[in-house]
């Protein structure tokens, strides 16, 4: 049994063997927002914050997260109010199939919270671990650039 605080809510959960935090979130806790596109840290679609650090939840052994605070995409909005990254992504056409979107929302909101005024190239480098196959990235960058200028 391990204890996790996920999006502010305490959970006690029993991961099976060396399963990943991603598997625990999805298959045991029903939090399907974090996506399972590559399960080897190459696509970023499972990105979460683990005690404030941006990680791929597919590469975190769930038992090693015991006691951690986890923020998933489900915890990014403030209730019904979208985070500005979420709102910008929808408005700018940064969402197509949306499978990469949760990871990008988590990574981009973390970037804006931790990096003052990133340039376009900074944004691109910081999000290089988040693969999107639909958009060619243009619309996502267009969504984030104005927010970066504000941050």
């Amino acid at each position, binding site marked *: 049994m391990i204890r996790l605080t996920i999006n502010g809510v305490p959970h006690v959960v029993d991961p099976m063997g*060396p399963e990943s935090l991603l598997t625990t979130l999805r298959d045991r806790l029903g939090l399907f927002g974090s996506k399972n596109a590559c399960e080897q*840290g*190459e696509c970023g679609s499972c990105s979460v914050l683990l005690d404030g*650090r941006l*990680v791929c939840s597919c590469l975190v*052994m769930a038992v090693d997260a015991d006691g951690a605070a986890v923020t998933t995409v489900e915890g990014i909005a403030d209730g019904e109010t979208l985070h500005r990254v979420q709102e910008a992504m929808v408005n700018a056409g940064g969402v197509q199939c949306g499978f990469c979107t949760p990871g990008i929302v988590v*990574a981009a909101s973390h970037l804006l919270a931790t990096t003052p005024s990133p340039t376009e190239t900074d944004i691109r480098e910081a999000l290089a*671990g*988040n693969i999107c196959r639909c958009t060619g990235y243009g619309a996502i960058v267009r969504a984030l650039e104005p927010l970066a200028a504000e941050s």
Partner: protein
Amino acid sequence: METLLPRHLDEALAATAAHPEATILAGGTDLMVAVAYQALRPAVVIGIRRVPELQEWDGRFIGAGVTYSRLERGPFAALAQAARTVGSPQIRSAGTIGGNLGTASPAGDSLPFLAALDAEVLLRSQAAERALRWDEFITGPKRTALQPGELIVGARLPEAIPDRQAFAKIGTRTAMVIAIVSCCVLRWDDGTTRVALGSVGPTTVRPRAAETMISTERRPSSAALDEFARLVSAEVSPINDHRSTAAYRRHASGVLARRLLERVL
């Protein structure tokens, strides 16, 4: 599966002593891929990221648990640059230098810097402590001299580290790539030059003849640089695989080493 999450080095060493065959988990960036795709199902896991002694970075000692994100912000430019090329921010916030050593991939990005400095790898068990030079520690591709019950505590660098240092890495995309060739070049004021290359041999390669030749050149001429590049290319032993060809890697090794040398001259 039994899980141990020690909070001190003593506790960790007691755990490895009690479970010498345990799987050591640091950042998880290699281990969890094996869990997902090679059906790795360890009986005992010792997670070491809570061990404060392994997080230490004190001058020339870099604790095994220091992440690439920390290396990126550290004082050694070549190591920082190497760390920056590791995967994505997500990987760098989890992966550690100890993990890079333990995995001992020929493509390990921090390894050329450590090899160029002839860094030592500090190992401890409950019974003993030992220091192995990098090439004594890494014995082959993904093979090390780590014994059951031992932990990688960290890497120890020599006192003399030149300011003139550079690292670069070739991949077929502009970020997030496993090295096709990586290279670190260090140059001291007296001309002494050390070169180490990744992904061009079973372990990190030190082209000794090239180092010797260029170390005597205080102001290398263009011809000397050509010769240096030729020697580097001659000394690597790359293979053909799905990422590249041996011929390209051999060629690129010389080009990259020469470019880095020119940057630090």
